[in-house]
């Protein structure tokens, strides 16, 4: 009879492990290239970023081995504990000295840990534990979005909302808008777990309204010879839309079917108007000036090829100048540490160095690699009998996907400039540890797929 360990080893998804190692090694080689200093050529020099990254990967692999050894059920049992401890860390970090205007680091010398990165792991575990414990209810697909529907949604799901809401609020207090945005990736999980598709539809509409609000909020226009603010304009547009719907309903809908539609219509109108005000308030209250500028740049409200948009322009120039086959290893002229034409080229803008040196061949390869990883995680998720593991897998997929989408999208000008790392690729201990543990736990849980029933 084979030992338990052998069995687990045999059921480990080596393809996932291979993808992990490939990304990590590509990442280290890329960091080495981007920060290369001829005075410190040693790959393992701990005073360099590549040296530190190797150290962090080593630590991550060590933790990975521990994860492989312990029992999967222990992970499930400890889920809320891990979550609780990480939330306490998120609270504790608010009492540290701010670095660059945010209280997000616990530092020891030149090493530091960002609890907000690890909090993602905690949220994954807690959400998986919570959702897997409630029976699958056939969520009624509400006919439309209305206030009563929202109230019901909140009251029946308050635990889910709390699990995600607490870290969201805590990271906003740091403030760390990037991590906050990543937390919205859990919508993907909720979607997969049968929560009404209407939520997504609702969110899509919300995003559109929010974007329009931000674009026009602080501009003004003349309507009927009266000067009014952009915000009022949106409200006016919403009211006109409501009127049009009202007329359409009166024209085309049978009388007995009208009341619920009216209710839905008035409900959405009120929610929309409140939301417009909330977005504007949040924009002016929570975001600091450079974040506002980033959003304004992305929305095209300000255009400034070498001023405020400096970073993103140089990032695009670095990527674009890579050409088809790239400039070659250590040949990036823009995205490298000694020139500093592109900022944060080993963390937030790491994709620039890669794309400049490897060209379209390399950048497309990396993008496809992430796509393969994501699809792979989805396929792993779908083969689980354990709901816990499936939910956890989707959490991992969502987080990887968001980081990938925003980081790469930012470099090529398709996403706002939000400084978050490229998973397993960017320099940074906390992020390497978090993404590694997410994958390792997934691999561990997956390896027990034949053992675990629920």
């Amino acid at each position, binding site marked *: 009879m084979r030992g338990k360990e052998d069995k687990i080893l045999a059921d480990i998804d080596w393809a996932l492990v291979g993808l992990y190692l490939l990304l990590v090694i590509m990442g280290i080689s890329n960091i080495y290239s981007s920060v*290369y200093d*001829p*005075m410190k050529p040693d790959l393992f020099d701990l005073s360099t970023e590549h040296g530190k990254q190797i150290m962090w990967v080593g630590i991550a692999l060590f933790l990975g081995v521990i994860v492989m050894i312990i029992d999967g059920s222990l992970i499930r049992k400890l889920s809320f504990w891990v979550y609780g401890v990480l939330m306490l860390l998120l609270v504790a970090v608010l009492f540290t000295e701010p670095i660059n205007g945010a209280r997000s680091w616990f530092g020891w010398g030149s090493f530091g840990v960002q609890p907000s990165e690890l909090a993602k792991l905690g949220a994954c575990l807690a959400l998986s534990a919570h959702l897997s414990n409630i029976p*699958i209810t*056939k969520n009624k697909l509400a006919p439309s979005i209305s206030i009563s529907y929202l109230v019901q949604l909140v009251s029946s799901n308050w635990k889910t909302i709390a699990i995600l809401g607490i870290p969201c609020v805590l990271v906003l207090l740091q403030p760390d808008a990037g991590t906050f945005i990543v937390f919205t990736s859990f919508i*993907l999980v909720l*979607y*997969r*777990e*049968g929560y009404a*598709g209407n939520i997504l539809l609702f969110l899509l509409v919300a995003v559109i309204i929010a974007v329009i609000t931000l674009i026009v909020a602080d501009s003004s226009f003349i309507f009927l010879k009266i000067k009014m603010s952009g915000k009022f304009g949106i409200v006016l547009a919403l009211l006109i839309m409501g009127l049009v719907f009202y007329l359409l309903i009166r024209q085309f809908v049978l009388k007995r079917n009208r009341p619920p539609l009216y209710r839905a219509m008035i409900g959405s109108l009120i929610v929309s108007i409140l939301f417009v005000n909330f977005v504007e308030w949040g924009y002016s209250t929570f975001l600091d000036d450079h974040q506002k500028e980033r959003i304004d740049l992305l929305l095209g409200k300000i255009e400034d090829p070498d001023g405020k948009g400096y970073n993103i*322009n*140089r990032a*695009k*120039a*670095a*990527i*674009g*100048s*890579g*050409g*088809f086959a790239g400039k070659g290893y*250590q*040949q*990036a*002229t*823009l995205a*490298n540490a*000694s*020139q500093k*034409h592109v900022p944060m080229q080993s963390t937030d803008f790491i994709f620039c160095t890669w*794309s400049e040196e490897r*060209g*379209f061949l390399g*950048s*497309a390869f990396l*993008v*496809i690699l*992430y*796509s393969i990883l*994501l*699809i792979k995680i*989805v396929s792993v*998720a*779908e083969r689980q009998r354990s709901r816990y593991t499936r939910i956890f897998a*989707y959490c991992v*997929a969502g987080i990887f*996907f968001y980081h*990938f*989408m925003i980081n*790469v*999208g930012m470099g*090529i000008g*398709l996403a706002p400039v939000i400084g978050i790392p490229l998973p397993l690729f960017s320099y940074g201990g906390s992020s390497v540890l978090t993404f590694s543990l997410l994958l390792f736990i997934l691999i561990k849980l997956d390896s027990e797929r034949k053992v675990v029933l629920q």
Partner: protein
Amino acid sequence: MKNIDNRKYIIALIFILIPLIFVIRLFFMQVVDDKWKERAAQISENKVITYPARGIVYDRNKIKLISNEVYYDIRVIPNQMSEDMDSFAFAKLIDISIEDYERQMNKARDYSYRKSSEMVKQIPPDEFADIAPELYKYPGFYEVERTLRIYPNPIAAHVLGYMSEVDSTNIKADPYYKSGDLIGKSGIEKSYEKVLRGKKGVKYYLQDAIGVETDRYENGKYDTLAEQGSSITLTIDAELQKYGERLMQNKRGSVVVLEPSSGEILTMISSPTYDPNLLVGRRLGQNYGELMKDTTLPLQNRSANSTYPPGSTFKLLMALIALQEGVITEEASFPCTKSLVGCHNHPTARGVSDGVKMSCNPYFYYLTRKIIQQGKHKSHFVDAAEGLDIWAKYLKSFGLGVDLKTDFPAIRYGFVPNTNFYDNEFPSKSNPYGKYGWAYSTIYSNSIGQGEVLVSPLEMANIAAIMANRGHFYYPHFIKEIEGQDIPDIYTIKQKTMVEPENFEPVIDGMWRVVHEPGGTARRARVDSLNICGKTGTAENFKIINGKREQLVDHSIFIAFAPKDDPKIAVSVYIENSGFGGTWAAPIASLLIEKYLTGAIADTNKENRILEADLMPIKVVPKKK
């Protein structure tokens, strides 16, 4: 349930779709669109600025006043230095302290190991001659040539001005300047900065990943050559300027010489002066500091930036205004009533010419009263208020206290008091005389050039030119020619005063008699056959010394033009603290006139007396007991 399981396909679709969009976008950015490659080249190219030589400045006879000389900056590339280099010996070689050496070295290393940084700059060629043969022993260090100003004739320091590094306001005001550039800070260097500076050149290099220049960008397609600044010719007569500066040695004061027929400034001297070569190169800061500390104020341009009371020279204008206003005739006689204003002993002045010749204070007291109190109103106060504004208007037409459009920076205008001034600002803004609160009896000192009126030596030279021209002038200016450009039209437009030419004759006659007749106040200015016309003045001089108001020795003033009937030169001379105008200022003016008109000095005794005079110490009048 099945419905919900289908959602995995939607999620998978998103995971494929978004990366696909990214790949397409990347393909356009990296393969299709060349825009980003151009942007990258612009960002990573290294722009090397080549500096143009500045325009040469000549005097009116094409003698070089300002030229350029190659200076040397020493730069360092830290990673090319040898490890066993003797820092102490090197610091000694380039003549800096070991602390300065270390500081520069640290700055260089902080900036880049591979790129060059400045070590010392602006080493003059004679000092570099000692360094050059040793420099090869110190790998990593090399020299860069740079042109700086040199003054072959070390004269006219205040006129020519000096250059120093731009400050943040200069950079903000004009994007041409980058930190470390030089800019004209005063004098001609400042007023003709844009003409003289030329055009910078640019060379573009490409850099590799570690910042080493690899190639010319696009084979130098976008490179431009530096263009030397245009040279300019000044109206200054270097010979006369040099001679004047010799005469003004050991004296404090100013000399301005104009050509009346054109307004060209032949000479502008402020004494004590300094060697303009002191304010060039790496000793600029130190030398400037020392000149700043000097209590005789060698950096101050007394000719253009100082004002003095005009003293008795002002009487010329009083006479002209009175004649033009018709309040007197040229035969007008006033008694020398010493109880009103002090005077010296002289025969009674029987006419304007006599009054000017004898410089009788009471004469001009009465004469000016006729201008101010014309008797048009019953009230003396209303009468004076109207009269003073007429008077002030005349003086402004003589260029006093107004912009003379001189092509020179930071010119200080004189001051002509008017009715508004006495109504609202004098004796103090908080407690002025008030409207109709004053009459001629309050302000009469102005009639003899003492009260509140102030003039600059440049303005007084212009007055001398107006006398020479019998009523008109041209704006005094320094520029004669600009290479490839015309000089401004304003300098060729005749500026008319409010006094008709015929009214000048009795006054000029008086000026001639000042110099030539017994009893004239400036007989020391007489040079046979030159027909110099002049007027002396003494400006009272107070200074607060140790908190007490001390009467200092008066400033000696003399303005003159010559020859009387075809004037070629107009002069104003101010000698601080030297007493009566006829004693020092008049002979200095006459020597300058003689030198300019004849090229030599006949009376060497007169010349030697001036050259030997030392009037530097500030003298305090002994207190009368």
